């Protein structure tokens, strides 16, 4: 099958799991631009430019571009979203404090490039997490725009991407998500 590669942007606030998501799915060596974090963000390293990985799914070659999470890098959100087919916005269910930032990212990106998106709700295995319905309410989105995903689980990540691709390609393709290494 010969389709042009699809560009998918993975964005979201700091610590949502963007880099992990791309590492989990990519079948090629991931380009990571992580640097030592000087702010207290709950981890040692943070992405300053982009993460880049590739995979084949549903007969398509997908290029995954991960953005930095901090607002000071918002120019990279614009740069990376150019020509994108879809957006996965990762939101950590146990960090309601980051929801506003996530909504800002979503509005920033979709106001510049109106692309299909899905909200990937991560860290749902933590204690004291928001339910999908509550998060949907906060974002003013139908709950069908949200999906819980463990960014470390390859098949869950692939299902998420498959769901997004269905939105990017409304004609639809086979139901079963197939990931070829």
């Amino acid at each position: 099958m010969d389709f042009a590669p699809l560009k998918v942007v993975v964005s979201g606030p700091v610590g949502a799991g963007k880099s992990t998501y791309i590492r989990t799915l990519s079948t090629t060596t991931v380009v990571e631009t992580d640097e030592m974090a000087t702010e207290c963000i709950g981890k040692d390293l943070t992405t300053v430019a982009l993460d880049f990985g590739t995979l084949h799914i549903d007969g398509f070659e997908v290029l995954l571009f991960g953005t930095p999470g901090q607002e000071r890098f918002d120019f990279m959100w614009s740069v990376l979203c150019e020509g994108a087919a879809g957006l996965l916005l990762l939101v950590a269910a146990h960090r309601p404090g980051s929801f506003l930032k996530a909504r800002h990212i979503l509005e920033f990106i979709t106001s510049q490039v109106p692309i299909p998106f899905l909200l990937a709700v991560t860290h749902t295995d933590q204690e004291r997490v928001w339910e999908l319905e509550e998060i949907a309410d906060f974002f003013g989105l139908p709950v069908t725009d949200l999906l819980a995903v463990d960014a470390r689980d390859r098949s869950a990540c692939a299902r998420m991407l498959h769901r997004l691709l269905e939105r990017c390609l409304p004609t639809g393709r086979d139901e079963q998500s197939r990931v070829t290494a």
Partner: protein
Amino acid sequence: MSLADRLQSTLNELRSALPDVRGCLIASADGMLIAQNVSSGDSNRMAAMVATSLGLGKRMCEAFGSGSLSETSVSGDAGQVFIYGAGSKGVLAVINAAGGNIGLLHLECRAAARKVAEILG
């Protein structure tokens, strides 16, 4: 002298040594502004951008087998930005008007970057 004062005086010295330079700043590798001597523009934004450029440059050096990155630059028709790694923690960026003595600029800036690396430890 405090850490901040030492970094600031490094930038101030750089600007007085190089009259064509329109500004210079020091940022952390993750894009937080540490010190600046910039005539115009949003220095916080510049700090994030130079960290992005440096971070990408580092991975390009790895990918292309060019060793560890020492510097990178961006040129427009009205000026250039030179970005120098300053140890593992910092980055020095120098905004230059078009033309000028680039040889002298590199000489001064590389020395300044080494000094910044020392100060940041």
